[in-house]
């Protein structure tokens, strides 16, 4: 500011002050922008673009369009009422033969199998048999090879494949799918489990957040009120595990909680129980390990806010006649709320994305959305599904954050 005033005052060339000011201002903005540019580019290239690309996969899928080009093209005029005509079947035969030669039948079969479970095998075997077909009529021949081609649902699916965009993955993520006439129907009960998984993720996250708050708040209070010598020692005990690898902490719980682990041995030695209590590979293990890992995230913001609250406030309340609890509840507690909100929000959002911990200490029914994203990415190779689940989780998180912001106000949050 000082340099600016000097420059303006000493302007020799008679340029209007406003323009001069604007120039200086622009110059400063540019300078500031250049400073943040590397980080901005880094975030854009390493974060926003890949995530955006992955999210795009949730609605973009041109497997059928590119691998079965002739069938897709031929089907574009099909009205969807009866079975398509001979021309379409001829195109299908051509596509299948080509796919077999190029060894891409597997990918087509896989894509069709997503929407019509059990049909994938028939697609592969049809392709294997279709290479023997040399001349038409193809319609009867293909239906003879596999009854699949005599069903309308597979043709509706192929017709939908003519568009590079599909809502299938997003629908499937909330337990809906396309019916035989491309109408949206609920998924059959044996494959409808995603809503459950989302609810489970939400439930576990809320419970873990509540548990960390219940455990963390008193400790934070203790840390903030104890003399520095003692509180520093306590602080180290809290932060030390925080510096340990998450994997190590998780597997340590396996050692502690397993059937013949330390906890069960102690319980049995104390005759609390006669046989081992199931503490691991279930919800209990998941909750305990997650709470342990998340505790510092909730505790630290609360602590640093408590640190800034003058002790005189409570003393003043007491001197004015408030009881110890009343003074705490009416004077002290409201002032910690920004820290409580910040800590809980941090823990809650981190919990939503948990993957490794439930994988190691949870059972099959304790797996959260992250597990399924990993499963579909690495093992099932269903990247559309992985993207759709990820996109829904991200959107839900942002929505929750928005609601939170409306209710509490993010600008009121304090990390310290």
């Amino acid at each position, binding site marked *: 500011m000082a340099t600016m005033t000097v420059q303006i005052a000493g302007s020799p060339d008679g340029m209007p002050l406003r323009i001069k000011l604007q120039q200086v201002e622009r*110059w400063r903005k*540019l*300078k500031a922008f*250049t*400073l943040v*540019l*590397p980080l901005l580019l880094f975030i854009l290239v390493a974060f926003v673009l890949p995530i955006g690309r992955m999210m795009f996969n949730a609605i973009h899928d041109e497997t059928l369009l590119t691998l079965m080009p002739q069938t897709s093209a031929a089907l574009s005029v099909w009205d969807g009422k009866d079975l398509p005509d001979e021309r379409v079947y001829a195109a299908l035969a051509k596509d299948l033969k080509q796919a077999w030669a*190029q*060894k*891409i*039948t*597997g*990918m087509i*079969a*896989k894509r069709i*199998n*997503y929407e019509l*479970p*059990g049909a*994938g*095998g028939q697609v*592969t*075997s049809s392709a294997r048999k279709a290479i023997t077909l040399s001349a038409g009529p193809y319609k009867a021949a293909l239906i003879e090879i596999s009854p699949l081609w005599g069903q309308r649902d597979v043709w509706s699916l192929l017709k939908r494949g003519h568009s590079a965009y599909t809502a299938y993955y997003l629908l499937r993520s909330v337990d809906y799918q396309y019916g035989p006439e491309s109408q949206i129907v609920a998924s059959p009960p*044996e*494959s409808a*489990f995603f809503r*459950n*998984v989302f609810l489970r993720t939400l439930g576990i996250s809320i419970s873990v957040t509540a548990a960390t708050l219940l455990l963390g708040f008193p400790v934070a209070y203790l840390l903030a009120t104890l003399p520095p010598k003692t509180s520093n020692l306590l602080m180290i005990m809290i932060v030390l595990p925080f510096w340990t690898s998450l994997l190590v902490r998780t597997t340590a719980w396996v050692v502690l909680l*397993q*059937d*013949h*682990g330390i906890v069960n041995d102690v319980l049995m030695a104390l005759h609390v129980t006669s046989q081992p209590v199931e503490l*691991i*590979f279930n919800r209990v293990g998941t909750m305990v390990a997650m709470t342990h890992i998340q505790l510092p995230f909730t505790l630290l913001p609360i602590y640093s806010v408590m640190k800034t609250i003058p002790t005189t406030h409570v003393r003043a309340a007491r001197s004015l006649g408030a009881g110890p609890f009343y003074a705490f509840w009416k004077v002290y507690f409201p002032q910690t709320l920004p820290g409580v909100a910040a800590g809980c929000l941090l823990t809650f959002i981190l919990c939503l994305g948990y993957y490794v911990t439930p*994988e190691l200490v949870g*059972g*099959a*029914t304790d*797996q959260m959305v992250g597990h*399924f994203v990993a*499963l579909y*990415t*690495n*093992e*099932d*190779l269903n990247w559309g599904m992985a993207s759709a689940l990820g996109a829904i989780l991200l959107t839900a998180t942002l929505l929750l954050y928005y609601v939170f912001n409306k209710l509490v106000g993010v600008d009121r949050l304090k990390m310290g």
Partner: protein
Amino acid sequence: MRKTLMVALAVFGQAAGTLASAKLAFAGDQLTIVSWGGALQASLRKAVFEPFTKASGIKITEGEYSGEIAKVRAMVDSKTVSWDVLDASGTTAWTMCAQGLLETIDWKKLSLDRAKFGDVGKYDCGVPVQVSAVIVAYDKDKLPNGPKSISDLFDTKKFPGKRGLSKGPVPNLEWALVADGVPINDVYKVLRTPEGVDRAFRKLDTIKKDVVWWTAGAQAPQLLADGQVLMTAAYNGRITNAVKESGKHFEIMWDAAAQGWDYWVIPKGSPRLDDAYKFLAFGGSPQPQADLTRYIPYGPSNKDALALVDPAVLADLPNTPERDAIALHADNIFYIENGDDLRQRFTSWLAK
């Protein structure tokens, strides 16, 4: 200002330079071979990798994976294949081959007698290496009268307690059917029908709450050692090695052991195809295959190698004639056609 910009540009230039040189370093004269890590990879290193480097002068860079086709698909699709040779197991190998992710092997270039490999040599995309088996293992100290047949794995009355199983449809569905009374040779015939699949899942339902699922081969002996499970599905080699190293009295039950062949395969588009072929020829030859059994009890694929195997080790191999007779032989064609469907169904079943 200009200075700031220059610095920023210089930093970026340097970063780009580092990336480029990292890529160049990849293209050196060496072969990247990827296997499953752990005891198996350590054994391969001693029996195959080191002798190969000695014989051919080609250096080997090792990598590890857990059989994810995703990684191979990503490399092949983006035409940046950095894995030259891959140790792929039965159904995965066949599926990758069917999906066009692997080079088709020209056996003439290998100087190996394909007939020596018998039926497993009929695979188009690689050279069979060794056979392992998923068996049921238990701790004799804790369970003196262990399971005798695969039905016992499903018998929670006779053997109350947790069982460890591999988290996936293979070989759980097959075992479920065998335990439900399907003759072992008809398993895939039954599994090809929707009713058969339902039947397998119904049988699995009966023990679902008693199962601890594992994903990595090393977890199985660990679960058993910790007493977390009464019995567990496991790779035979992991159990034999655990017995050797820790002195535990683990016992292997060979009934319906699910045999799985491993193959050396080449991802499509490997830039070092000639060297990769040299490695495949070496990996398929009798001596290194026989040597491997000294470190881990997985059976050699080359029939000539069997003669070179130490008779003491022979007892631990999964493909001795009497074990072969009661084993479950995976139908790879079945998995190419139905693997995805069963995996989808298994995922839903498990999540419920």
